[in-house]
């Protein structure tokens, strides 16, 4: 039973890491209706810029600020040079454009900052917490705990930002209805630039957490693939959905990885590891059959 809880808590904590990436998707989709496939590449770019700045001698805090500036500028440039030109195109075209953007980043970032895998030291060690290890004999990583703390702070800050600031209110208005927002004088393009900036910031946080945990390398772009099932499970438009979806996916994926392969092995023989790759997707798919708009997604009503 102890082992079960250890896997469960480990899964929940890694789910928080997925949710960090999924948040970036949700922010952009909510505000502009763009399904931004480049979010994974942005995570990679953010982590690389932090490491790259530190290699040029900048201390950690300066590197983070520089990376934030890079991400914001990049987000604004994306909005200005790509998305603004694609206004009124069908969503699939915008989606394809963000895949192109992902390729662009994946080519550009290693050219500027170097492609070899590097470690990112942010002063948190990835080791078990001794008190829990002794009292309950469970391995709970300190790092994961800090990461979930960061995620909690991030979500709180975002929620406050959306709820109580002028810009946040404008963002919610745009998310609700582009036309109506425009007609009461909210500058749509500024808002989109801000959204991309915020998404860049979220990518930066996610990139630092993932980079510190697994090293800064090309594989960071695949975090997007981890975030997608979280996204459809929670609903594309819901910030709490991303968090809850992340927790569900993280926990069930780790439990499935431990408990399903032995069952299949005894049934068919052979090695059935690595189901982490598809299990979240199948789980999310089955879930969608019951609730087609995800857990917290807006209910879609079709009118002819």
């Amino acid at each position, binding site marked *: 039973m102890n082992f079960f809880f250890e896997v469960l808590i480990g899964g929940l904590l890694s789910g928080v890491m997925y949710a960090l990436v999924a948040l970036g998707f949700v922010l952009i989709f909510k505000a502009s209706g763009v*399904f931004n496939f480049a979010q994974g590449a942005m995570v990679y770019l953010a982590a690389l810029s932090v490491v790259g700045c530190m290699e040029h001698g900048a201390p950690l805090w300066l590197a983070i600020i520089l990376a934030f500036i890079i991400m914001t500028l990049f987000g604004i440039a994306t909005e200005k040079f*790509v998305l603004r*030109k*694609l206004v009124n*195109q069908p*969503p*699939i*075209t915008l*989606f*394809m*454009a963000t*895949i*192109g*953007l*992902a*390729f*662009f*980043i*994946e*080519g*550009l970032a*290693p*050219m500027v900052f170097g*492609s070899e895998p590097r470690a990112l030291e942010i002063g948190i060690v990835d080791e078990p917490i001794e008190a829990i290890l002794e009292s309950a004999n469970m391995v709970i990583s300190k790092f994961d705990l800090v990461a979930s703390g960061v995620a909690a702070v991030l979500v709180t800050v975002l929620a406050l930002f959306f709820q109580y600031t002028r810009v946040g209110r404008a963002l919610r208005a745009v998310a609700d209805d582009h036309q109506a927002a425009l007609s009461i004088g909210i500058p749509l393009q500024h808002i989109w630039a801000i959204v991309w900036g915020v998404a860049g910031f979220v990518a930066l946080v996610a990139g630092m957490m993932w980079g510190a945990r697994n090293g800064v390398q090309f594989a960071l772009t695949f975090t997007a*693939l981890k975030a*997608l*099932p979280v*996204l*459809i499970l929670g609903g*594309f438009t819901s910030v709490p959905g991303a968090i809850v979806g992340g927790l569900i996916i993280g926990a069930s994926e780790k439990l499935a990885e431990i408990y399903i392969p032995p069952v299949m092995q005894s049934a*068919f023989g*052979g*090695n*059935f590891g*690595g*189901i982490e*790759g*598809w299990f979240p*997707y*199948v789980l*999310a*798919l089955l879930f*969608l*059959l019951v609730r*087609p*708009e*995800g857990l917290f997604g807006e209910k*879609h009503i*079709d*009118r*002819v």
Partner: protein
Amino acid sequence: MLYREAGQFKTTYAADQQLFPIRQDRLGVIALLAIGFVGVPLFASEYWFSAILIPFLVFSLAALGLNILTGYAGQLSLGSAAFMAVGAYAAYNFQLRVEGIPILVTFIMAGLTAAGVGILFGLPSLRIKGFYLAVATLAAQFFIVWCLTKFPWLSNNSSSGVISTQKMFIFGHEFDSPREKYLLVLSIVVFLSLAAKNMVRSSTGRAWMAVRDMDVAASVIGIRLMPTKLLAFAVSSFYCGVAGALYAFCYLGSVEPDGFSLELSFRILFMIIIGGVGSILGSYLGAAFILLLPIFLDIALPFFANLFGLPFSTATVSHIQVLVFGSLIMFFLIVEPHGLARLWQITKEKLRLWPFPH
């Protein structure tokens, strides 16, 4: 002037309903087929056959399959590579396990197997729409590739699922030179393209387009959504499956499950976006573009590097390649969101008058 249909009168229903109603189109298609079947085999080199022409035809077929599903029926799919994998492995297994089965029947069975799997993964489309469906098709992508790696029976117990395809015989003649393989692929692709062109203008195709434009409205006017959507998944997967079988048997000769990765699915999706969503011709143009672009960049980048005296390492070249590829995708989407097929349409309209001003 070159492309003017004035004076071509239709006197029978058959003439009015033919596949290419304009004479210039008919002549163009016949000329293309003549070049493809006679001209190219006479002059092309071995390299052209095995590195450019065969993959071009195979990817055109896969893009055509995806175009039927995404372009005509409006269901966005990110799992086309997985259906290609199903086709490739099904063809291998039919050849392996069924004694004396003809190779063409094998390809058809491979397509049908892929169609069955496609229907299975198309079932969620009855409930889920848009990007939710796109992400759901990723489940097919990852699950199928995982199955092919983990179930040793499917690859006849070879390590890590690699299969080497069998020899191909038709009426006792072995197809093993690149030229013969090219002709075989070309015949299959031409046949399936004509079938697709016919299908999309039939009542089936019109039903697909109605569903694409608005599925609620389509169901209100009496189109049954379930058979229509599932048929689109089945036909699309059939095309992808045959393309996968040809990919394994005629192009690579030996494939592994990881070769049918998400990246391949994206490449096929790029092909139809660049070529033109909802256009048969677009599938070909897109496949040619996406296939030739990396080859072109491979040649052009070192050339430019020498020209400006920049020392490029191979790593940098590969990064620039990815970067240029991404930028070109964005550039194309901004400049011509309807794809290369639209450019061809504009050209045709210009050709009606050219070289006269009116």
